């Protein structure tokens, strides 16, 4: 019950904010009868109305995971974000092995298995992408490779 209400409320607020920022769109001298504002404003209004439906007529509550699983999911997101930043400066192999290993451990908590999975995925994917698909991946950080 309440998840739908909360989501509906948040979505309605976002939609309203969207409408407000859409009114700020600058029009240029190349004007057409509709202009660049009308369509986004319309979407925002329809979105806000449908979101209010959720607030007043929510569906049954979905099964949310327990708090510990949420922590695990949050950690997974953090790891992925770190991976996004690490990919360029640190090269492909090291970050991929670590991140793949962590994800593997999170799905099935066996440390050795996860470590092997991470390492072999990193090497295997690197070989496939570099040599079979011809992608210009950098294996190691520049300061290491010299």
């Amino acid at each position, binding site marked *: 019950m309440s998840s739908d209400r909360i989501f509906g409320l948040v979505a309605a607020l976002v939609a309203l904010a969207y409408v407000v920022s859409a009114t700020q769109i600058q029009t240029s001298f190349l004007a057409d009868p509709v202009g660049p504002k009308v*369509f986004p404003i319309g979407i925002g209004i329809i979105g806000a109305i449908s979101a209010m439906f959720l607030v007043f007529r929510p569906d049954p509550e979905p099964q949310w995971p327990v708090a510990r699983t949420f922590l695990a999911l949050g950690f997974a997101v953090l790891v992925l974000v770190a991976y996004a930043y690490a990919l360029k400066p640190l090269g492909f192999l090291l970050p991929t092995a670590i991140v793949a290993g962590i994800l593997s451990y999170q799905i099935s908590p066996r440390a050795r298995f996860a470590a092997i999975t991470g390492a072999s995925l990193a090497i295997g994917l690197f070989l496939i992408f570099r040599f079979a698909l011809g992608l210009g991946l950098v294996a190691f950080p520049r300061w290491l490779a010299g």
Partner: protein
Amino acid sequence: MDLLANLSLGFSIALSPYTLILAIVGCFLGTIIGALPGLGPSNGVAILIPLTFTLGLDATSALVLMTSVYYGAMYGGRISSILLNIPGDEPALMTTLDGYPMAKAGRAGDALILSGFASFVGATLATIGLMLLAPLLARVAYLFGPAEYFALYLLAFCTLGGMASNNQAKAAIASCIGLGIAMIGVDNTSGMPRLTGGNLHLYDGVDFLVAIVGLFAVAEVFFFIESHGKNSSIGIKLEKTRVPWRDIYETRWTMLRSSVVGFVAGILPGAGASLGSFLAYMSEKSIAGAKGGFGTGVARGVAAPEAGNNAAAGGALVPMLTLGVPGSGTTAVLLALLMTLNITPGPTLFADRPEVIWGLIASLLIANVVLLLMNVPMVKVFVRVLQVPPAILLPGVTMISFIGIYSLSGSYFDLLLMIGFGILGYVLRKLDIPTVPVILGILLGGNMEDALRRAMVIADGDGWYLFSTPISIGLWIAAIAGFIAPMFMRGLLQKPQRVTD
């Protein structure tokens, strides 16, 4: 005969060794993607799209590869349905109802081969239907002006929202999320940035591939972390396999009927393969009556959903190719592929680039034969693939998604955006909000707004122009009916949750 000339053109392209190899590779990859729980047609095709660019394939080759993957995934979904009682992808859900009981009764091999054959019948008939119907529809599509296109896009959102979701408001929110995201970036007509919040990365807009991979592939990883990849060990042993000729012969009419039902369901915008297999199973069940024994592992219960599902997969290509409006989640992903290849689907595609269309149709026919050969004698290979544990598979999928998106733009910003879409996809699916309308909105939002604005330029701002031709009035009525009618058919159309195709 126009058709024969076109077909021979198609086969002259499809039978070149290079295209043939791509089709075979696509079928193989597709069957694996379909068979593995956690990888379905839509996310499988999505993570492969960036890779086709790195391979530098031309339009026809890329399309042949991806549609083979698409057809293959539809075949492969049945394998885990039958052996694990877990649908390998959404459309294969109905196959679990009779396939798993049949496998438990010691007839796993029979069920796999029968369903493989049913898939072949459904897919082949649907490809022939596509061949006959698409050129006709393409001719009708010439009558479409901007007003009609606007109504058509609306129809796609309405029927998709109406049928693919259990709650209309949620489908509408999903469509608005997608359309709203599509507005971000520089406006085509006026050249002014819109809703970018001053972020330079957003001036080009949000790349739909980033959104698709995030919503479909990255979100899946979060689900597996939540469930710790349980329920994925093989419970059924596969003994000797031989061809159950008698079952195939006895289910011939079931296969034909289900193919027709599935094909029609597939053509409807927004309905897709899940609805095709659902309707095919339900109609066969009511034809057979109580003594048909549906749900206890009968041959007809295995053949019907598989024929329906594969026929719908072919049917869904019809509106996608002729009108540029996808009929399902996976065809939406295929549309994304076409758009990135700079091919505009629609009637002009049939006139200007016949080699793309007919090469595609011919390779679909070939792919079907290849898939039948792969899925009947080689079914054991794919059963082996099912033993890959999710703790290897899902990290692999994530890494491939990251590399694929990274190779498109080389910017960490797109990767962050992709993670954001992954979180969004997780939350939406938890709340039973369909994600396919989000994709459709991002894909079609720009075109939809363009159609509206061009219509208004023609009519000089007169809103009634949108309802000025019989075609557009018909589309508006169909759109409203498609959105409202399912509300009254809830009891009749009690659908399984989480339709992603």
